[in-house]
């Protein structure tokens, strides 16, 4: 295989329709270009059968769970008696944790709205459709920008005492620096993998890490008056 060529050539086998036809398809330019026939499976029954098996396994797991653990039920709702702490459902506890640091209009309205808008516009950024590595071009300049953003973010979180959100930020930033110091020729597989990742990967991973850590802390590490508690004590 010659590495220099950036295209592959294909021939139409139908001699009547195309006496000689040569097609040049550049590599990895469009996900829609079909370059070869792929093995396919009929949706009925092949795919439906597999989906049915997957759903049945889920049903078995959930039924087992329902037989072993009872859903919580506390006393009758009493508006005069506030439990301490009063917690939202688990998937909102990340936001409730943020409410501890920021005013409600920021933690309860601004941040969730921005997250939803960010999620919606993701596919409309038509930049870097080939998912090129963040460090492939302009590596030094990009590293400087990343470092600046990371420092500003960390200072901001420290000023508001949001140490729990600072930790995932520092960890993701550390991995980014490790990626910047790696290359496609690195010996370690992890380094090669980190190096290959585009910017979108890093932003989403940071978001995922923040969401997971904040939700876990809101769920397990918060007690009366939203004070810090260790879940294994008490």
């Amino acid at each position, binding site marked *: 295989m010659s590495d220099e060529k950036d295209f*592959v050539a294909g021939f139409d086998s139908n001699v009547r329709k195309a006496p000689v036809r040569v097609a040049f398809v550049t590599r990895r330019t469009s996900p829609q270009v079909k*370059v*070869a026939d792929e093995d396919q499976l009929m*949706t*009925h029954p092949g795919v439906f059968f597999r989906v049915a098996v997957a759903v049945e396994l889920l049903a078995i797991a959930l039924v087992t769970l329902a037989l072993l653990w009872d859903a919580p039920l506390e006393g*009758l709702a009493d508006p005069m008696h506030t439990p301490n702490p009063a917690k939202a459902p*688990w998937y*909102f506890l990340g936001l409730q944790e943020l409410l501890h640091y920021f005013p409600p209009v920021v933690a309860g309205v601004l941040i969730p709205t921005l997250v939803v808008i960010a999620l919606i516009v993701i596919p409309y950024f038509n930049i870097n459709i080939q998912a090129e590595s963040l460090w492939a071009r302009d590596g030094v300049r990009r590293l400087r920008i990343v470092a600046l953003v990371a420092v500003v973010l960390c200072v901001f979180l420290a000023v508001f005492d949001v140490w729990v959100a600072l930790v995932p930020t520092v960890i993701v930033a550390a991995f980014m620096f490790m990626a910047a110091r790696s290359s496609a020729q690195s010996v370690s597989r992890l380094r090669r993998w980190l190096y290959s990742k585009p910017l979108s990967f890093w932003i989403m991973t940071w978001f995922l890490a923040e969401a997971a850590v904040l939700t876990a802390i809101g769920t397990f590490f918060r007690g009366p008056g939203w004070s810090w508690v260790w879940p294994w004590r008490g």
Partner: protein
Amino acid sequence: MAKSLTTYLDELRDSRVWRSIFRSGPGQSNLHHALVVQSNVFLHLFSVKARKRVLDFSVTWYLGALTFGAFLILVITGVLLMLYYHPAVPLAYTDMKDLQFVVSSGVFLRNLHRWSAHAMVLLVFAHMFKVFYRGAYRPPREFNWVIGVVLLLITLFLSYTGYLLPWDQLAYWAVTVGSNIASAVPVFGHRIRFLMLGGNLVNANALLRFYVLHCMILPLTAIFFIAIHFWRIRKDGGLYAGAPTTIAEKEEER
């Protein structure tokens, strides 16, 4: 001379009545299998073929299918729970106690609904991250990703509205915390909260509103968007299988 079961089934499928309902009739050819999908109002949302390699478990973890499976379990258990539930104060809570002590398998029914709801929220998030990391949101699938975000929000609202229905301390204060956040919206905050709760406090009106949202409006909206979500997979080129195999790679395989 006993006929096998498959022969009977084939005869049934070939009968006039059956063929008047399901047009495809008996047969095992690919054309027949394609017709089964194409000539069914629900199944025709899907394409008739899928690339084999996208069906490996490791590619998608079947998270979309599993989310839909959890939704089906929730619809079935939810309808059954509606038979034993009054959206009124304090009847809602005594109905929970009836489920516990009077209704056969009542506790199991409530448990299954509750755990499936948590599972669905988890699965929706997992599905979203998996789709993102695979790059399956990229053009031409942009709009299906947006519909996915809408379905994520609907799932969260479904779970949140359902949270109030047992009318116990846990439900009451969780919803109070949530609705207080709504009142932080600038200018319209208190009006939004009033609209949401049907009053200034979480009370019987709020319970009724959440019940109607949880059992009628949100599930119907979810089904509407799920149908579009499935149909768009077909229209946008089938289940996303990653970068296409090049002829060179195909040659290497052989």
